[in-house]
């Protein structure tokens, strides 16, 4: 029972972290149309920064564990301490959840704002947005940086959670997972990012871990995993190109129309029926 709970909370942490990655990529690609194929670089930078920051008090491991450990070891006796270390796992999950919720709120607020609308206009047509007085370079730069900050936050959480980072373990295929999550879930919709993270990062990425390892080909399972995710992306693009949860139509509160501002030009019947 304990193992299953531990496993589920581990999955929960990964789910939260992948959600944050997907929000970040959504701001870049889904909102603004920036093709960022190096998502994981910024995750690694966030992770590296978190790692360096936690090295300060000559204590290996992360800052949060240091603080937790400090409180726990000063104030608790050994048996209670053991319980607290068990609880720490769920605290990390809770922390990830809270941070994810904040990221979700921020990402959604940006989407619904005037700024988000300008971002989408740039995604739709860069030249036109520029011709309408939008400083497209600045908006795209802001989007890129904001997305990278999100991904970096995800990276910090990753490091806090797994407490180790091997640069070789974070390459193209990890970027690919985030992209796949966003495409499968639906670009331009943060709910899509959540659904995609669940389907791709948690379900697909984790389900394939239960495939029996073949001793002669140790890397076979991870290759199969990538192939499965690739297949899922192709299927999505084929049957449901907007993703499982596509971008929602913008809704405005209805403004009553004053009758005198109806079109003043007489409408010829031919045009009215569609030209």
């Amino acid at each position, binding site marked *: 029972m304990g193992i299953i709970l531990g496993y589920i909370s581990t999955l929960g942490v990964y789910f939260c972290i992948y959600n944050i990655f997907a929000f970040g990529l959504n701001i870049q690609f889904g909102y603004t149309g920036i093709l960022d194929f190096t998502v994981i670089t910024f995750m690694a930078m966030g992770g590296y920064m978190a790692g360096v920051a936690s090295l300060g008090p000559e204590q290996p491991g992360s800052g949060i564990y240091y603080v937790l450990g400090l409180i726990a070891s000063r104030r608790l006796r050994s048996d209670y301490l053991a319980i607290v270390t068990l609880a720490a796992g769920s605290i990390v999950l809770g922390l990830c959840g809270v941070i994810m919720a904040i990221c979700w709120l921020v990402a959604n607020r940006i989407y619904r*704002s005037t*700024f988000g609308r300008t971002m989408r206009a740039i995604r*739709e047509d860069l030249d036109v947005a*520029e011709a309408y007085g939008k400083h497209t370079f600045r908006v795209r730069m802001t989007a890129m940086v904001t997305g990278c900050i999100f991904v970096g936050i995800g990276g910090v959480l990753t490091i806090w959670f797994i407490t180790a980072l091997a640069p070789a373990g974070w390459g193209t295929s990890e970027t690919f997972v985030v992209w796949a999550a966003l495409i499968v879930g639906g670009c331009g919709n943060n709910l899509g990012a959540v659904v995609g993270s669940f389907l791709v990062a948690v379900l697909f990425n984790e389900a394939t871990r239960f495939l029996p390892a073949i001793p002669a080909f140790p890397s076979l399972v991870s290759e199969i995993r990538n192939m499965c995710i690739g297949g899922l992306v192709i299927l999505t693009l084929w049957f449901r190109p907007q993703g499982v949860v596509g971008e929602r139509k913008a809704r405005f509160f209805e403004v009553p129309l004053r009758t005198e501002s109806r079109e003043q*030009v007489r409408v010829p019947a031919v045009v009215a029926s*569609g030209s």
Partner: protein
Amino acid sequence: MRQPTAVESRGVDEILAVHELRRSFGGVRALTGCSFGVERGSITALIGPNGAGKTTLANVVAGASRPQSGQVVFDGRDVTGRPSHEVALGGLIRTFQISREYPAMTVLENLMVSPQRQAGEKLSTVLFHPRRFRSEERRHLERAVEVLAEFGLYEKRNDYARNLSGGQKRLLELARAVMADPKMLVIDEPMAGINPALIERLADHIIRLRDARGTTFLMVEHNLDVVERMCDKVVVMAVGQTLATGTMAELRGNAAVVSAYLTGGVVDVRAQG
């Protein structure tokens, strides 16, 4: 930045003046010293045979393309080689030869993007002062609905712009430009490929905008009947230069203009212009 020169001398209030613009793409010389002025509050047509450099001129004026030499003065400011968005913020909006709506956004959203210098376009405002742009949004929304009604697109406000018909896209393009509250609109072939009834309708809208808001229009156009009916002044271009300017009636008698239209402009423009 150079001072506006050789531009104010003509005695009329010119909102736009281009002076000796030159632009070539590799070996193709698209503009070879083009000069003319556009009077404030006028509807000026820019006509000329294919390849005369009309679209290049529109691009250079709007800042989408840099001239190699020459000067563009808009509303008393030298905007030569300034980036598009700066020119647009100064009040000059251009539309494109093909309709380029924001396809995956609704008609209403297409309009809501246009207002310039919106407070809600700053990330810090969005995150920390959301109230500051809510009232602004409301104001823009009321305006957008009004503009849509003027253009007969009110019923379509919640449709994706990509689902509009070709004619409706043209109307949307114009409505969207109006939303930006421009001093001047440079419209590139607004009448190309649309039916005569809609041409009438667009022409009426353009004249109405000029009369009601005082918007100046520079219109690249091929349809000479439309030009004759709508435009106060006509600028004729050929092989990258201004061949003649005047009213349509004056130009009909101009041998160089007629010849340019028949021969594609391979005449000695300096001798006759």
